[in-house]
């Protein structure tokens, strides 16, 4: 039998477990083993949080927003609280701002080490995964010591923070940073020198500076392609004006560069944590904030471990927000996966996907259903009818 001319084939990956333990659907068109086209479908974990925020008070929303993401919970509550404070024209005291930055940097450390482990696991380097996650426990314990919880720190309240750090905790923080710095130096050496691992990362998923600009890549993904884009530097918030960061970039734009940028950012975070611990300003932790937030709208941006996190908050003068819009960094970086995937082997896809440090669950905001007649706007009655019909089948 003669062979078919075209060997084009579509490989669906997901929605269950596409490289990561979060739902997202990808379709890779392959010719032989080489990917020639890629499409993504998101929206499997829409949780209606933005709508939910409208029926809760400002204080209650703080904790709802904290649960948008399971890894970077603090930055979500910080983005929300900074926006609300801006609307209410209230400034949290300097000590509170410094503690916000401290928790944010500790969270960045935990998130970057978590990513290091996940990405190593996708590359088949489980030793690095196990050891880096063991070391990550250090920073998780530090976060628990400071805030009282490992994941949802709830360090923020409207108008300040609810956790303080004492001398003993400062000592623990410094000791933890010393240990982690030593380990991180080792990991940097491993990911830049180990030949077997470099085979999976060097020149894989290359995104040039021009491409990164065109696709609007943000966070470490963009910085690995040479983009100078970091909200902490561009418009400092919380404690960042007093404790500034130094931006870390790389030129290559491949997976190795993303490893290097994230690991070097860890060193930057260790430096910041030490600086804050040494020079933390004294004073109050909270300031008074009204229960009814004055009418107005605002945009609040913070740098999450994955890139710029964007909050739009609108108040109508009551004790509940009128609209809260969240845009998480993973959404901006998703397009880069689809572009950089082309030309690589199918086996590299999990690595390229993990390379942007995606967090699908937090970026799923809304699902637009395309109706039978190409309609995309449905009213409640129609949606209900669709639901009934769907399950009748």
């Amino acid at each position, binding site marked *: 039998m003669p062979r078919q001319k075209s060997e084009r084939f579509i490989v669906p990956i997901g929605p269950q477990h596409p490289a990561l333990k979060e739902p997202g659907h990808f379709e890779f068109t392959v010719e032989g083993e080489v990917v020639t086209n890629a499409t993504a479908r998101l929206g499997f974990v829409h949780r209606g949080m933005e709508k939910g925020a409208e029926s*809760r*008070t400002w*204080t*209650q*929303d*703080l*904790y*709802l927003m*904290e649960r948008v993401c399971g890894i970077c919970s603090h930055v979500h509550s910080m983005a929300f609280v900074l926006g609300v404070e801006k609307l209410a024209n209230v400034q949290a005291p300097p000590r509170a701002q410094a503690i916000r930055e401290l928790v944010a940097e500790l969270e960045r450390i935990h998130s970057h080490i978590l990513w290091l482990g996940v990405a190593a696991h996708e590359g088949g380097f489980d*030793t*690095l995964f196990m*050891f880096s996650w*063991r070391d990550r*426990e250090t920073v998780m314990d530090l976060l*628990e*010591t*400071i*805030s*009282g*919880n490992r994941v*949802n720190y*709830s360090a923020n*309240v409207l108008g300040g923070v*609810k*956790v303080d750090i004492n001398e003993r905790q400062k000592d623990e923080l410094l000791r933890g940073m010393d240990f982690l710095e030593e380990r991180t130096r080792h990991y940097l*050496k*491993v990911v830049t*020198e*180990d*030949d*077997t*691992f470099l085979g999976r990362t060097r020149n894989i998923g290359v995104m040039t500076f021009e491409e990164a600009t065109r696709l609007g890549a943000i966070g470490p993904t963009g910085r690995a392609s040479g983009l100078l884009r970091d909200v902490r530097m561009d418009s400092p918030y919380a404690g960042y004006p007093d404790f500034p960061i130094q931006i870390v970039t790389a030129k290559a734009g491949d997976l190795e560069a993303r490893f290097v940028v994230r690991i070097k950012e860890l060193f930057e975070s260790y430096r910041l944590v030490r600086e804050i611990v040494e020079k933390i300003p004294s004073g109050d932790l*909270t300031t008074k904030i009204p229960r009814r937030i004055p009418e107005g709208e605002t945009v609040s941006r913070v740098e999450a471990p994955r890139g710029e996190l964007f909050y739009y908050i609108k108040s109508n003068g009551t004790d509940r927000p009128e609209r809260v819009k969240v845009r998480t960094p993973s959404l901006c970086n998703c397009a880069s996966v689809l572009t950089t995937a082309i030309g690589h082997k199918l086996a590299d896809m999990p690595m390229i996907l993990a390379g942007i440090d995606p967090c699908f669950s937090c970026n799923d905001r809304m699902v637009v259903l395309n109706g039978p007649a190409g309609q995309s706007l449905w009213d409640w009655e129609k949606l209900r009818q669709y639901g009934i019909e769907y399950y009748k089948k």
Partner: protein
Amino acid sequence: MPIGSMLGDIVKSFFKKPVTEKYPFVKTAAPENLRGKLVWNPENCSGCQLCIKDCPANAIELITIDKVNKRFVMRYNLDKCTYCAQCVVSCRFHCLEMSDDQWELAATHKEPFEVYYGREEDIKFLLEKAALGAPEEACPEA
């Protein structure tokens, strides 16, 4: 170091104890800031209900027994609680705190998740009333 850059770590691990905690057998103390079970001390409570208003999970209720003499019973739902400690911050009289030693809260049935705080006779009165099927006095919206 072309290959096997983590071999050193592996070899070292052979001579070390596992890093995992032997949790149910050996218990390490929780940090003092830990947000465990909520504890209510009725002594200073004025019944302002700010804690209830701010609770994101609607896990606490204050049932008024005698408003004039400030006798309240607090019903706390452990399973609804998100352990955020907002109520502790909201309380102006420092009646609430989150315990750092009561955190092993798992149970196989629902009853232990409903905790009553207040005077013993008040709780008894309330539970007896509930057993009779009488509607309890709901706390008015503050």
